[in-house]
């Protein structure tokens, strides 16, 4: 799998180069800009990690559901619900207690937002892709409404909550001025390692993966597939909610309209690229982070930022087709 990921990255870069040539920019120059802008300095790398953090945690959420055989497209909505709740709680309860309470409430909110999709899938066989997409729309519009009205900061020009007090924010773990390492990325990495261990070593992890691989065989092996589907979907939503809380508490300090640039959708790509091991989430999210951060530098040099999305799209297609081939050749 690692060899394949390397090949994918090379392929993606080739596509990027071709695209740049067509738009009349020197590929070498642009690639240099991309990497300098994302990895070239401690400051740039800090920015890359900041972009990576929400993608890593959200990717983790998508990955758990994926392993139980569910495609949770709803992490975007669960992320927004978590972020709104975290900002709301954080503005009312301050200090470390406020931080913990915000995270907890955001997690519960994300779980509840995902729960209907899990229940409908398990007990009514309604496809989770459809229900989670629908819940995304509801979450998007509903949080827009809240931040335009009830939650809008008094006297604010834009649709935004007030800023959190400094003592209700999560400080950086390391901040040397030039380099900043946030708590979010650490939480993400620890979460990935815990999940990896849980999947490999525990009976519950084994049963969850069995449901994902073959629900009928799981049923005959004494596993309650329906319960596990509901739990996996809720857990996935809870993790997305936590990602929302960290985005508010560690980076943004508030919730506003247009809070997510589509992290929830990029996270689908992260989880798909991660492959068979949860550890794969780390390089996959970092790759997304590099392209996102580097894309900003490209834009500053007159290259449309969208080129990086094209690269990601191409890579996901290639990854999906590699997977498809390995399924076919198994027959």
């Amino acid at each position, binding site marked *: 799998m690692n060899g394949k990921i390397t090949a994918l990255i090379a392929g993606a870069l080739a596509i990027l180069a071709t695209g740049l040539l067509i738009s009349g920019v020197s590929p070498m120059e642009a690639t240099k800009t991309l990497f300098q802008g994302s990895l070239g300095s401690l400051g740039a790398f800090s920015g890359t990690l900041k972009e990576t953090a929400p993608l890593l945690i959200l990717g983790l959420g998508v990955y758990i559901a994926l392993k139980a055989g569910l495609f949770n497209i709803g992490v975007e909505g669960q992320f927004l619900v978590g972020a709104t709740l975290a900002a709301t709680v954080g503005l009312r309860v301050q200090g470390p207690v406020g931080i913990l309470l915000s995270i907890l409430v955001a997690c519960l909110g994300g779980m509840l937002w995902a729960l209907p999709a899990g229940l409908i899938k398990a007990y009514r066989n309604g496809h989770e892709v459809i229900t989670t997409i629908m819940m995304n729309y509801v979450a998007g519009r509903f949080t827009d409404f809240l931040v335009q009205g009830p939650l809008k900061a008094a006297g604010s020009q834009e649709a935004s909550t007030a800023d959190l007090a400094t003592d209700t924010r999560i400080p950086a773990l390391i901040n040397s001025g030039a380099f900043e390492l946030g708590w979010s990325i650490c939480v993400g990495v620890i979460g990935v390692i815990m999940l990896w261990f849980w999947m490999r070593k525990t009976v519950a992890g084994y049963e969850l993966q069995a449901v994902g*691989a073959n629900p009928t065989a799981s*049923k005959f092996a004494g596993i309650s597939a329906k319960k596990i589907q509901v739990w996996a979907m809720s857990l996935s939503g809870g993790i997305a909610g936590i990602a929302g809380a960290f985005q508010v508490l560690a980076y943004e300090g508030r919730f506003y309209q247009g809070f997510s640039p589509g992290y929830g959708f990029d996270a689908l790509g992260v989880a798909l690229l991660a492959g068979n091991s949860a550890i794969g989430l780390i390089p996959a999210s970092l790759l997304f982070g590099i392209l996102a951060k580097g894309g900003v530098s490209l834009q500053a040099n007159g290259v449309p930022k969208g080129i990086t999305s094209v690269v990601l799209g191409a890579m996901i297609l290639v990854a999906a087709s590699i997977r498809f081939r390995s399924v076919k050749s*198994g027959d």
Partner: protein
Amino acid sequence: MTFAVELLGISKHFGAVAALDNVSLSVEKGTIHALVGENGAGKTTLMRVLYGALQPDSGEVKLDDQPHTFKNSKDAIQHGIGMVSQHYGIIPALTCLQNLILGAEGGPIVKVSEAKKRADELAKRMGFEFDWDSDAETLSPAGAQKLEILKLLWRNAKVMILDEPTAMLSPSDSEALFASLRKLVDEGATVILVTHRLPEVMDHCKTVTVLRGGKLISSHPVSEVTDRSLAELIVGGSLVEPPVIEPVRDLGIALDISKIVVKDDRRHDVLKGLDLQVKRGEVVGIAGVDGSGQRELFQALLGVRKIDSGSVSIDDQEVTNWSSAKRLQFGLRLIAEDRHEEGVIEDWSLEDNAILGLQRLEPIQKSLFISTPDRHKWAEVVAEKFSTKHGGLNQPMRTLSGGNQQRFVAARALEMSPKLILAFQPARGLDLNGTADVYAAIREKCKAGASALVVSFDLDELLIHCDRIVAMNRGELRQPKPEEARDRQAIGRLMVGAQ
């Protein structure tokens, strides 16, 4: 002697494996020709070559003395060669008529009345009766089999290949099938019968060809062979002796099913107050045509299908409302009917599959965790029990052949202290000696205090291996009279609901 079909010197390799090595087969026109051999002997491959679904590496196919190369099965059917495979190609949602003509409608617009007229003529010729407008899902297995044969006649097949046609039929339905096949043969058609049921060969076929390991072993008129000599040719050595059935000592009741009512997937009562007792140490076989309620009974016993009323006790412990996880922990073990869907996870390694269903049992589970060394040791035990051929315990399950998967799944159910073994076609896909091995292992566990309930669609298999046989028909169990307890005909009658 004129041959309808001749296959001369056929060889076919898959990678480095020779599936067929210089095999020849000559089928006399107007006869039933049996093709026998163990799983993997090359029977199906040879038939697929004849049917045009596979191209041989070398060799020649002759039809009425003319060499032919069939590009595909459509080409073959146009030349009058048709095959009914073991899994019927009937689409349940279509009507019988639609199934009959599917793919051979004779034009873009179906002339229903003309089609029905011809369908009636064909059915009458064979002595079958069909309600052409009813949905095919209402057909019994025997009805579906008949429809498959009519499908070949509809396409003017002159050579019919039937792959294990009686696997799902009751003895009386099988007799009726052979009566119709004789009729066809008398009219000049030719039938190639692929089977593992030797009595069928002895009673109904004129010639028998034996394959083993992709090679032609012999081709004889049936009059020159016996049951026993044929079986030894198939196995290529001596047979495992069948078990001596001794009376079971009375050690109490291990499984007590009392008046259970269970619904099928369409919410109809399929088991209407079923009773059954199995003694400790006893191997009880349930004979019956597929779809008589065996599936629902097993699912209810395992706890994956709701029991509406009645009770089930195992070793005097009522388990009616227990989850399947709890039942498995208590000592219930299952050899599932549908191995691919219910028994294994094909993408997973053998080692991961070895604990499927046992994942919450000692010593596999240690508090919240799976004990990896114990899992590995256990997987080795499972693979060795029936000598599963595999390329490493870390290889995916799908790399195993069907027979080897079955060995693995059977060992998994038998080797971890079972109390009650539920075995649905435990010898599915196994050769004669493999079958004997699995049943011997079930018997050994029962001698050590377990009990077993076995479902098979092959009555002969149950007669050889079980202590006692009950017949199942439309969700009801019938005990044969004591003096007819091992009488094939009597049990066969009970299977179809006759007295």
